[in-house]
């Protein structure tokens, strides 16, 4: 009695395949169970360079610092946004994250009025009655005037003929803090909590969220549910205007608030060794003040288009948003494709489709590039108006905010990542610098359908064209 070593010869090899085929063909259920024959060792196994280490932040602390430079063409918004964040990974799987963001914004934004063949003058409250110094928030062509007989100090600015009126006095500073904590609670289950606060000169926002996720199916399937509550307070320095009243320098009403309640249901599925898919359904309802207190609408003559009044806009007090997001990550050898699509619908009538595609390609061991493209398209909210017509009854709601109009947007970008240290799992600290350059362009029709004859040569489309550069650095250490 002897035992031969387990190493297969020519016939034994061929037999494996032969019988596998036979049994697979004759028993449908055999496929997952029948043996197969020898094959060369996994030739498809990608050789991944050090720039694509495996995810193993357990026990590590990760520091991130980044800055975003953002610039819209035509002298519109410019932003500089530094971010620092830290992630502390406990050895048992708990993760604590904190992020601090500062956002400085300057530039001009469309005030909502329609273009006109002549110059247009807009009057808006100055910071406080009796102020004679330069008013915070005003610049670029603004002048301060005292309204005769009232003592009210107003800021006035004039916009040139045949251009979409913009208010150049836009300047803001946003600071935001985000905190998050996630911890395993039982086998495959994770509980997460988060909160954030952000403040601007005239706006504060606070939110809190909680979520639960559960792995199933040998960690191949993750189902998650999370809920978020947000409280926002809008407090323009001159007060909140009453909707559809005439734009003026008069003091306005008190601060207004809104709440947002939303929930996300998600499933993440590892489809096979190469493919990760994610499906999310998000629903959220906002209630309260959602009108832009600075934005006006022109009331124009039905023939000439001449503006007779500028009315503060008015939006519904409730908005229900739903979206379905389907994302995929596929590892094709050493490259990774990220492809996603999002369908969005809200009760204001905005429907949108977003599609994104990026491909991460390792070039050499210390460099990868990731070209990306994004397409976005939305329909207009059902109360979107480029202007109102004098003599016609006021609609229930109206806004000329381009965010609620119909447009498409294309984004093209390139991300470049450079791992600086970390030639293996064990090289700690490891760090990476990365850059992303991105070009964003909105397109849409210059004129609404049935435009009044006098405005037939004006360009109403205020589409944004923006370039952004993001530079980041991340370092992980014990």
């Amino acid at each position, binding site marked *: 009695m002897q*035992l031969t070593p387990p190493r297969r010869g020519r016939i034994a090899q061929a037999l494996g395949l032969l019988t596998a085929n036979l049994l697979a063909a004759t028993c449908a259920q055999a496929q997952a169970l029948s*043996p197969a024959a*020898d094959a060369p*060792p996994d030739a498809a*196994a990608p050789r991944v360079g050090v720039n694509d280490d495996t995810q193993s932040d357990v026990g590590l602390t990760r520091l991130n610092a980044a800055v975003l430079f953002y610039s819209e063409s035509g002298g519109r918004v410019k932003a500089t946004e530094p971010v620092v964040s830290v992630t502390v990974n406990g050895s048992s799987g708990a993760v604590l994250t904190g992020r601090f963001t500062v956002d400085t914004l300057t530039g001009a934004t469309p005030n909502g009025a329609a273009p006109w063949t002549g110059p247009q003058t807009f009057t808006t409250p100055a910071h406080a009655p009796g102020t004679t110094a330069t008013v915070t928030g005003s610049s670029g062509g603004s002048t301060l005037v005292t309204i005769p007989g009232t003592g009210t100090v107003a800021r006035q600015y004039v916009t040139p003929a045949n251009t979409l009126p913009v208010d150049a006095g836009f300047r803001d500073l946003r600071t935001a803090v985000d905190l998050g904590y996630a911890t395993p609670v039982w086998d495959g289950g994770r509980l997460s909590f988060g909160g954030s606060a952000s403040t601007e000169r005239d706006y504060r926002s606070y939110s809190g969220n909680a979520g639960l996720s559960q792995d199933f199916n040998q960690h191949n399937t993750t189902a998650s549910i999370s809920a978020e509550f947000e409280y926002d307070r809008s407090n323009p320095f001159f007060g909140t205007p009453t909707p559809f009243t005439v734009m003026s320098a008069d003091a306005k009403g008190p601060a207004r608030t809104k709440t947002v309640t939303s929930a996300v249901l998600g499933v993440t599925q590892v489809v096979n060794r190469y493919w990760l898919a994610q499906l999310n359904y998000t629903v959220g309802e906002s209630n309260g003040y959602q009108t832009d207190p600075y934005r006006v609408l022109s009331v124009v003559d039905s023939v000439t288009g001449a503006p007779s009044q500028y009315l503060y806009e008015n939006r519904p007090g409730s908005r229900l948003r739903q979206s379905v997001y389907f994302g995929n990550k596929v590892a094709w050898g050493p490259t990774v494709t990220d492809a996603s699509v999002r369908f969005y619908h809200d009760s204001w009538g905005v429907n949108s489709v977003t599609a994104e595609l990026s491909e991460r390609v390792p070039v050499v061991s210390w460099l990868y590039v990731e070209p990306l493209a994004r397409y976005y398209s939305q329909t207009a909210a059902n109360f979107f108006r480029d202007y109102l017509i004098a003599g016609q009854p006021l609609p229930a709601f109206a806004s000329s905010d381009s965010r609620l109009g119909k447009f498409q947007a294309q984004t093209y970008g390139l991300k470049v990542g450079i791992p600086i240290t970390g030639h293996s799992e064990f090289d700690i600290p490891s760090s990476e610098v990365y850059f992303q350059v991105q070009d964003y362009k909105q397109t849409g029709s210059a004129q609404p359908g049935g435009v009044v004859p006098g405005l037939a040569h004006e360009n109403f489309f205020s589409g944004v064209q923006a370039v952004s550069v993001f530079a980041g650095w991340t370092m992980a250490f014990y």
Partner: protein
Amino acid sequence: MALVTVIAMVSVGGHVAHAAPSAALDLSQYHGKVVYLDFWASWCAPCKLSFPFLEKLQSYYAGRNFVLLAVNVDHDRTKADAFLREAGSNLPIVYDTTGGIARTFNVKAMPTSVVIGADGRVRYVHSGFFPDQMPLYEAHISELLNAK
């Protein structure tokens, strides 16, 4: 005669081209010993955490009726070897590039440890590695070592 041979089944319909030679792990030579089979991979973060623990087991139970075998399931053996070099580990490694042994032992999470008694029976399976459960893992081993 006690011949304990695990004949690993080779994978699986649909991906015939990726199936690879049948892995075989001959546990017969360890009959009469407590065998701690640890399935690990270079890409698995908790596996990395578990290595110091494995090294400790290896040295602590040296000289007892104890065998530790670290079964590596990386598709690419070079990655496992790089990992071991970096970790400075010289644990006894069994390479299971096709997952044949892992399939035989029905491994459901990474890492997984299978603790086999001196009688050749699987007594405990530790799915995943949780540092706070290290005392329990050790208790299982000593229980089997003292079982005689």
